[in-house]
């Protein structure tokens, strides 16, 4: 149906499962003594990051290189954009140079979709995070990380059936939460969002989730504690009273972590505000903190997406 990856909402469960199964293959490629394949030789992928990013940008870059694609780094600060050229003109320019894929991150929700609607038939657009809207590859890599933890691999029928995931923090401003909810629930997990009213998204009643404001009452039921990064500006906006108050109500402190069953896993899209979402000691010493695993899996997940869209000759449906 689509040759782009804009939002996991566009994908059926089967298409998500297929991408996760394909990720199994690329995890194996990553373990070879030469972890690089010629699958996208001759393809060019432009990286347009209009918003700061370390992990996502680096892992898309590495994913493209491990598939032997050529990567066109677009300098969003020093380019003509600062001379007032519009993003549409920029995309037009890049497209005219003959790229096969455009990976885009932008603070404006919906921009990747807009660009996808305008590019040639031969160009695939991949959303690397747009505003508050979606971060589909993060949703995929988080789901993959959980599948891998609970079942070793995703397999052809990836499932999170029977698993209760808590997503804790600033859900309202989190594209990661939106994509995670979709990925997890598509695979059969139960999801509970935990946030104060001020950080719950509008229309949250339409999401396929349960909602709680009281972490301690729901925490014992979680198999996965999914933390979100809290942005400093939320305090300036008055959505959080104070850091101490937030930690007191929603932080995974040493005391809270001590009450978790050993097998409960903790995820976080990074970078962690140490001592706020997650206590330093928990981050350093607890087993089953999957944060590094999430980063590691970012590469094979993005290889799967790039290969599926640019190399396999098959469109995602």
């Amino acid at each position, binding site marked *: 149906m689509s040759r782009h990856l804009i939002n996991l909402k566009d994908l059926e469960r089967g298409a998500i499962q297929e991408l996760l199964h394909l990720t199994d293959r690329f995890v194996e490629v990553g373990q*070879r*003594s030469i972890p690089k394949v*010629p*699958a996208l030789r001759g393809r060019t992928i432009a990286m347009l990051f209009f918003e700061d990013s370390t992990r996502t940008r680096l892992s898309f870059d590495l994913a493209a290189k491990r598939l032997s694609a050529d990567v066109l780094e677009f300098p969003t600060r020093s380019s003509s954009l600062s001379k007032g050229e519009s993003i549409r003109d920029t995309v037009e320019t890049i497209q005219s140079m003959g790229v096969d894929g455009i990976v885009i991150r932008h603070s404006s929700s919906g921009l990747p979709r807009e660009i996808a609607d305008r590019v040639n038939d031969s160009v695939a657009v991949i959303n690397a995070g747009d505003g508050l809207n979606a971060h589909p590859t993060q949703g995929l890599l988080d789901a993959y990380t959980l599948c891998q933890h609970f079942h070793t691999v995703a397999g052809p029928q990836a499932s999170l059936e029977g698993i209760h995931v808590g997503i804790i923090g600033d859900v309202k401003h989190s594209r990661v939460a939106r994509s995670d909810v979709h990925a997890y629930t598509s695979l059969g997990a139960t999801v509970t969002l935990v946030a104060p009213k001020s950080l719950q998204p509008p229309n949250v009643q339409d999401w396929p989730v349960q909602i709680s404001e009281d972490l301690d009452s729901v925490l014992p039921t979680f198999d996965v504690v999914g933390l979100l990064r809290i942005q400093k500006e939320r305090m300036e906006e008055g959505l959080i009273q104070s850091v101490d108050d937030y930690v007191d109500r929603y932080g995974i402190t040493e005391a809270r972590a001590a009450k978790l069953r050993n097998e409960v896993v903790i995820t976080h899209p990074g970078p962690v505000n140490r001592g706020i979402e997650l206590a330093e000691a928990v981050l350093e010493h607890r087993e089953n903190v999957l944060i590094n695993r999430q980063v590691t899996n970012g590469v094979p997940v993005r290889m799967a997406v790039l290969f599926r869209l640019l*190399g*396999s000759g098959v469109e995602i449906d």
Partner: protein
Amino acid sequence: MADRERRMTPPYGGVFVARTTVLDAAQVQRALTRISHEILERNQGLEDVVLVALQTGGVEIARLIARRLFEIDGVDVPMGTLDVALYRDDIGLRPVMPEAETEIPVDLAGKIVILVDDVLFTGRTIRAALDAVTAFGRPRSVQLAVVIDRGHRELPIRPDFVGKNLPTRRDEVVDVNPEGVLLGEMRK
């Protein structure tokens, strides 16, 4: 069943309809026994020999060869599997998906790698396999064993061990399994 070849052969899919039995079960077994003896003879034993089966058609064949090598020489040769989809030269020209598992249990550096497949046709799969193998180390030599060589090579590639040379038409399909080799075609 030669699923991969079936998908590679126009019109890509359809139903396989057998026309002739080329080899029966006993003949397949005898061919594999002979290939096993030839492997031993060529390499003067099984030291450093590793079987690498091409997914998916080569896997069952390689298992049978490994069993025979054990029966003949008492050596358990390491066996791996290889999906060459990511190394193909026709990526983008037709649907390519790495669907099957790649698992190479040993470092291939310095080893004698014997690629095993069911059917040798254009040679493009083997070309991709030669490329893929180098990602796991630099073998001392690479040899090729196939049950059927059906001709129509598009690259300068030849097998070292062959069950049977079978002249075919390009649009025909060869189906190899331990119960026999069938020649037929795909029908929509």
